[in-house]
Each structure stands twice: as C-alpha cells, then as structure tokens.
C-alpha cells in the first residue's frame, strides 16, 4: 500500500522547499543583472504563500494530525511555530536585502573565496556582482527549520536539523566586511555544529536501541511499558537533547555564539538569533514532552540548572562587551536560558494544554512572540548604525545617537528595554509569565537567580542606552543610512513590542489556545 501524504497540510514546507529549488535554477538561467530582483521576488513570494497556507490550515480547526506517515506533526504548536518562523524569515529577508555601504552594495561578499582587496574582488565590485545564492540557501534552511519544529519522529528531526544547518554554515561565512572574522566564524560554527549533529545522531541510535523505533509515539509507549535497563534511554535522552541545546545556545553548548554572532553578516545573525532559537526551542520542547515526557523527573533539574547557568553566564560575560553584536550574543545566551525555563518547568507535559492559560507550551510561545520583534529590530538597527564599519564597531558608534538620529535611538531604546524585560514592553509581560510558571512548578530558586542575573544583563543594555542618550557624539561618527523597507520593519517591531507590553490581553487568549501537542 502506498503511504498517504497529506499534501495540503504540508504545503507550507513544500512551497518553501520547492521555491528554494527553483531559486537554484534561477541562478543558472537568469542573467546576472536581474538575478537579485528575481531571487528577492521568488523568496518573498515563497514566504508569503507559505504563510498564507499555514494560516488557512490554522483556520481550519479540524486540520490537526500527524502527517506523512507519522513524520510531521501538524498540530497547534507546529502551526504557531511555522507562523513565527515565516514572519521572522520575512523580517530577516528585509534586513538581508538592505544595501548598506559604498553606494548600495549588499552586506554579502560577492565571492566568498576571494581575499578582500584583491584584484578579483575589485573586479567583482565594479561589476556589482552579488551573491544571490544566499536567497535559495536561506529558503533551504527555513524549510529545514519548519520540518524540525514539527518533526514527530527522530529521522525527520535529524533531516530537519541538517537541512537547517548546512546552508547556515555557508551563510555565516559570506560577510563582505571583516571577511576573515566571518570565515573564522563559519569554520567554528561548522566544526561545532557537525559535532552537535553527530551527538544528536548518536543519541538517536541509542533511543532506537531502547525503543526499537524512531517514532516519538512508539518511544513514549516503550518508556511506559515495563523494561529492565534504562541506560540506553537516559544516554539517548541526554545526547539528543544536547544536540538541540547546542542550536539553542545554552551553557555549556554556547561557545560558538559570540564569534558567530559577531562574524556573520548581520542579517544572518538576526536569522540565527530569531528563527534559529525559535526552531531549537520548539524542537526541544517536542522531543522532551512527546516521547520523553515520562522522564521529566530526570530532565527537569539538569535543564533548570542549565537555564540558570546560561542566564548567569550570558549576563556576566556580556557585561564587559564593547561590541554591540557580541554583547547581544552573550545576552542571547541569557535569553536561551529564559527560553529553557518554561520547558524545564514541565507544566502539563502530557497534553501541552494550558491550565488556566498558563502552561509550558503557551508560555514558551508567548516568550518567543515577544522576543522575535525585539531581537529582529535590534539587529536591523545595529546594521544601520554599524554601517560600513562592519561587525567590529564598538560602542563609540552608538554615542550620542539620540542627538543625531532621535528616532533610531528611541526605537533601539524601546527594543532594548523589551530585551531587559522592563514594563511597558512585551519583554516584561513574557518574563513575568515565564517566572510565574517556574515558581508555580517549584523552581523558586531559579526565579531568584534569573531575576538577579537579569539585573546584571541590564548592565550591558543600559551601557548601550547610556551611550545613545547620555553621551555626546564623537565627531567622526558616520551618518546612519536609512531605507524604507527597514524603517517599516523597525516601526512594526516597536509597535508589536509596545502592544504586547501594554495590551497583552487578546494575544494572551490567542496564544493560550495554541498549546495542544499531538503525539
């Protein structure tokens, strides 16, 4: 019997993947002059169409099932994650098409292998040659993310993980400015990333050895059935979870983040910080809740410790950073800790449903909904302010921004306040929910530690705020460029952030309904 594939439910993934393949074709067939435009149109169309199909499936309340013979769970959390990923990807696309320096050259290298300043480089620049392959690569990575967040067996999870990661290793190395840093970042990310994948793969094998199946549901059944030896199970759990914690950037799997965040082109940093984290958090949630939910007494404590140590490490190490991108990488580690807290709280593991609107799944979703615009907007503005200086510009370029570019400074201020979690922004609302959930599930000590180190994190953010608002600008500061699409993006990010901070009521209702995990 031929397997049944629910094409309609999987259409969003298929569209993104299909257009990525088309993009490769376009690279070969379209003349260089038109490639950029064609690729941007294709990519935006793919994202828009996928978003449309996802929303249509969402509206159709009956369309919740485990599709493709148990490989992909199209349930409420998966749909919510797809929407987040596609919206985030649309934002990243805007940042990626931004042309920042020297009369409109994109931030991506024309030819990654050519040394900067060489004759070949000059030729490429004079021809205005651009790396348009980034768009298909970006879509491939996105399709991998969409598979990973919805994966309902370990095979599709691993395929998703790899399809997501491989293009990213390339994209990280394509920065036009500070190319050597970018190459270094790519190499580090690649070496650590493939090790993490290998670890995940090893864990998969061990889980298969325990359960005799890759299927999430079958693993859950095998755990529930009487069995004598747990060794394979525990080892497998630890290794698979570690592979995903690496992608999330949780201590002690965080080592790649500062270098990669700094070296990568800012658009790709934004992509890693938003969509990358969304994917890792959702994949981890599904892995730990659906097949391994019965083990929660075993994974809860280690995860809580990892979360708290991440928050502490990110906060303390971030405090001394002078480069904003690097600082955001360290605070990104702290945010990874915050993303891990609702998972570690393990409320309503079996259904995922919210109890009086507060459950791990819905709180994680709410945190990501607030985190996405704040992070995306922050990196977009960083691209503007650092401009042609590239990724190693320090706090000096932020000095007195409020007196040169009041609106840019104000927008950055609001977004940073949200990342700290001060009231009036989405960051406060969601931090409140995460911490209430954690305390309610008996992790009061984690709440105290998280708050104490958030105070330390605020030190980094307030250094940026201080530079922007309370310091006089240096005379040599370059002008901040502007472009319409990015302005719209930033304004949207600010509006969403403030809206979630002041009027979270409706969003709260909506998000509470998006929690039921299918198994």
């Amino acid at each position, binding site marked *: 019997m031929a397997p049944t594939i629910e094409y309609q439910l999987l259409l969003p993934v298929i569209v993104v993947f299909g257009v990525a393949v088309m993009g490769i074709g376009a690279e070969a067939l379209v003349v260089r002059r038109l490639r950029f435009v064609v690729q941007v149109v294709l990519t935006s169309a793919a994202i828009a169409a996928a978003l449309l199909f996802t929303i249509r499936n969402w509206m159709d309340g009956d369309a919740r099932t485990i599709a493709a013979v148990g490989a992909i769970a199209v349930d409420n959390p998966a749909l919510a994650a797809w929407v987040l990923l596609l919206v985030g990807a649309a934002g990243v696309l805007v940042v990626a098409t931004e042309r920042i320096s020297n009369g409109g050259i994109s931030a991506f290298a024309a030819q990654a292998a050519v040394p900067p300043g060489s004759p070949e480089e000059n030729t490429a620049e004079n021809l205005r040659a651009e790396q348009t392959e980034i768009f298909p690569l970006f879509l491939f990575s996105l399709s991998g993310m969409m598979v990973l967040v919805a994966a309902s067996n370990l095979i599709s999870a691993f395929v998703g993980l790899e399809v997501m990661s491989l293009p990213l290793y390339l994209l990280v190395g394509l920065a036009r400015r500070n190319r050597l840093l970018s190459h270094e970042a790519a190499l580090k990310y690649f070496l650590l990333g493939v090790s993490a994948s290998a670890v995940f793969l090893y864990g998969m094998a061990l889980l298969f050895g325990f359960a005799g199946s890759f299927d999430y549901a079958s693993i859950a059944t095998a755990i529930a059935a009487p069995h004598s030896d747990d060794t394979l199970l525990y080892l497998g759990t630890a290794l698979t979870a570690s592979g995903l914690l690496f992608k999330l950037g949780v201590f002690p799997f965080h080592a790649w983040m500062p270098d990669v965040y700094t070296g990568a082109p800012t658009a790709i940093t934004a992509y890693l910080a938003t969509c990358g984290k969304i994917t890792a958090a959702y994949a981890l949630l599904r892995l730990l809740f659906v097949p391994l939910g019965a083990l929660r007494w075993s994974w809860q404590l280690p995860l809580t410790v990892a979360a708290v140590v991440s928050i502490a490490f990110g906060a303390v190490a971030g405090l001394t950073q002078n480069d904003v991108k690097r600082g955001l990488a360290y605070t990104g580690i702290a945010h990874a800790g915050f993303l891990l807290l609702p998972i570690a709280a393990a409320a309503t593991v079996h259904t995922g449903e919210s109890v*009086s609107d507060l459950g791990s799944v819905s709180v994680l979703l709410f945190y990501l909904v607030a985190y996405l615009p704040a992070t995306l907007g922050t990196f977009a503005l960083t691209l503007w302010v650092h401009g042609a200086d590239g990724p190693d510009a320090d706090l000096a370029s932020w000095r007195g921004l409020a007196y040169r570019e009041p609106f840019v400074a104000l927008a950055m201020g609001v977004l940073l306040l949200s990342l700290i979690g001060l009231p009036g922004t989405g960051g406060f609302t969601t931090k409140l929910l995460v911490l209430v959930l954690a305390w309610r599930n008996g992790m009061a000590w984690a709440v105290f530690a998280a708050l104490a180190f958030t105070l330390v994190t605020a030190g980094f953010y307030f250094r940026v705020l201080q530079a922007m608002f309370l310091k006089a600008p240096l005379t040599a500061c370059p002008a901040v460029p502007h472009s319409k699409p990015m302005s719209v993006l930033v304004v949207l990010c600010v509006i969403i952030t403030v809206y979630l901070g002041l009027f979270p009521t409706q969003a709260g209702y909506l998000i509470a309904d998006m929690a039921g995990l299918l198994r």
Partner: protein
Amino acid sequence: MIVPWLTLVIAIPLFGAVVALPLRGVHNRRVGLVTSGLTLALAIAAVVLSRFYDLSEQVLWLRSVGAWYALNIDGLSGSLLLVITALVVAVLLIRSGLEPTATATATATERINVRPEIFTVLVLCTEACISAALLAADLVLFCIAFEMALLPCYALVGCWGGAKRTLAAARFLAFTLTSGFLLLAGVIGMLTAASATGRPSTLLSALGTVAIPEGMGRLLFVLFFLAFAIKGPLVPFHSWLPLLAREAHPLVTTVIVAVVDVLGGYGMIRFAVGLFPAAAAWAAPAVLVLALISIWYAGIAAAGSRHLLQFGVYTSISHTGFIMFGIFALTPETLTGAAMYLSAHAVSVAALLLVGTVIWVTTGTAHIGEFAGLGRRLPVLAGLFLISGLATLALPGFLNFAAELQVLVGAWEHHRVLTLLAIGGTLLGAVYVTLAYQRLFTGQPSPDAPPLKDASLLQRGAIGVLLAATLLFGCAPELLREYVAEADLGTAAIAAADAADAGGK
C-alpha cells in the same frame, strides 16, 4: 462612573507630555503648567467625588495570571495623589527662569545637547507613573507603574547636572532597578500563592483573602520590604541619594525625593504591611531598630553636611526613618500618623529643596561653607528656608507636628525605650536645621559680594503655598487624619494577627 476619572488623572500628564515634546521655549513651559494644573484639579475632583461615588475601574489585563487594570482611590492614595500633583505644579512653576542645563563644571565631552524642554516631558511622565502606582488596585499594575517610573527619572538625572551625573544616574539605576526586581520577585511569589486558589487574581481585594503559609509570607514580606526600603530610602540602602543630590540638577533631586520616593512609604503601608501583617509583626523589632538608625544617622549626617541639597536629602532620609518607625510600631494610631507624615514630609521637604534649588541657581554654588551672611543678601529666601526648615523639624502648628505626635503617642504604649530614642532623633532635627540656617544666612556678607536677585514673585508664591498648606492642615489635622484613617491601612488585619498571636499564647 461614565467618566473614568482615575484613568484621566494618569492620562492627562501623558497627553501633556506628548503635546509638550515638539514645543519650544515658553509654549512648552505653558503646556507643562497647564497640564500639571489640570492634573491637580482632576486629582482634587477625584478625591472629592470619591467621597460620594465609587470611582473604581477594572478591566482584565492578562487572564493567565489574573492581572487587572484596576484603579481605586482611598484616604491613603488620595492624600498622596493630591500631594504629588501639587508638588509637580510647584516644581514646574519654580523652574521658570531656572532652565536646567549642564552646570559649568561639565567638560565639553560630557555636555550633551538635550533640549531643556524635554525636562517638562520627563517630569510629566514621572507624574503619570507615580499617580498610576498610587491609584493601582492591582499588584501587577502597581509593579509596572513602580518600575516604569525608573526610566524618566534615570533620564532626568543623566541629562542635567554636574560632571559626575552619569555616575549618579548609573547608581540610581542600579539601586532602583534592584528595588524593582525585588518587588517583581515578590509579585511573582504572590501570584504563585494566589494561583493556588484556582482562578488567580492579583486584585488587592482578592489578595487580602489568600492564605499564605508562614514561611512563604515572611519571604515575600522581606522582598517587598527591601524593595520599599531602597525606594524610601532607609539606611543602609540610601547611598544612591546623597550622590544624586550633589550631581543631579536640584529640581530633579526635588522630584525624586518628594514625588517619586513617596512610593517607598506608600508601598510599605499598603503592600509590605497590608498584605503580610503577621510577617510584619515578626520583623517589626528589627525594622524599628533600622528606622531609629536612619533617624539618627541621617540626622547627624545632615548636621554635618556642607552641601545644600545633600543637607536636604539627609533630612528626608531621617524623616523616612521616622515614617518607617510609625509604620512598624504597627498600631492603628501610628499607621495613620505615618500616612499623614508621608504627606507632610513630602510637602515640607519639597519646600526646603525648592528653596535650596533657588539659592543654588542664584548664587551658583551649593557649598554651605561659601555662604556666610546670605541672610542680608537674600532676605526672602532666608525666611522661606527658615519656615520650611521649621516645618520639617515639626514645629507645633505644622502638619509634621501633628503627624509626629500621633506616631509618638501611639508608639509610646508599646515601645517606650524606642520611642524615647525616636523623640531624641526629632530633637536632632532642631539642631541640624538651626545649624544650617546659621551657616547659611547669619553673619556679615563680605563687602565685595555682588548683589543677588532674591526669589521672584512666582517662586515665593509656589513655595509659600506649599508652606501655607502644611500650616493649614497643621492647625486642623483632623481634616487629613479622618480622611486617611478611612483607608484600609491593614489595621484590621494587624488586629486579627495580634488576636491570633494572643490566642496562641
């Protein structure tokens, strides 16, 4: 109510801030004055109306934790609301003619080009946050307003003032943010306790009925206490304030000490004691000792202080100690007295600091040693200084005296020795006020001192009205006492806790 009076009290200053933002010069100042005046009028209207109607508002904010946008007004919040809205008007009035700028000591790299008009905007934003905190009838809303007030205050400190103002702003930020996060931790704990009831709600009316285990109650009390002790500030959590007084613009110091720090005492009465009466009784002996240390330490520091504004804030810290003494004596009389003292203190210390502001700006220095014989050169300011000094040291006839007497009489029965020590502390007030007056105003000015312009009519009027108000209420303290005593100051809960305690023995 069809008109949301309390929301208007919060919204009008915000609206005024938005309108004032693009305006320059005199238009900006006018918008500021009109807005703050309107807010004061609305606050008066709200207080009067609340005697006849129920003005409370309630809209669900976040269902999952049971947080509401809920406002209410009672004697405690109403009296303080009147005080802070009036003080904002006074600050904006005094400011005419004293544009806040970076002082001459700031070097070129530190001088930033902030439009002085932003001052109006920030003060109005601060006013909105503090009003919202006072009117909040929901714990989460209070927490939000309490933390939000940080931002305009941080900007106020950092934008205008001396060479080390960024340091002062950073230290203010560190302490205030810590205070905010301690409060947040307490709120989260409270939410957790409330969620045990099934359908959680953070309305103050609902939180009063939540049963909290003893240990948890003590933990939460300590969190709330520390948050408000930093805000107060109580010694030893005060070290941000003297630096701020030296470095920030004096008007900013006035706003922070007289308007913002009111939340310290208010929160202590309403939340720390109001929600956890049993834990408050448990901690009371330690807190009373801290309060006495505050009274004495800050009093001695004020007597020795050589900086005009620093003198003012040490006075304030000493009085905060007295307010905490009244609160943690934990009797209905002392709590009412402390609530009255809170208003009296805010008004009198604001008058003192405003006089200090005018002297600082007119003479260009705030160092007390450089002022011999100022009385001859600035007779009106000398007089205003003396009167506000006498008000702060609680001379009979001023509201401070009535409040102080209420506290001391109430506390006498329970804590004789401590009360005697507190009385000693208030006598210390007479010492530091007269010492300061002597150093500043008496003696002969040097013959070549240039003539100075005494306080303008506007400045005299603004400070005079504040002093007149403390005198008026000082002569008829019953007006305030009855209004404040109507509020639920947690006295019923304290009595219940006492009864349970006595029953246990």
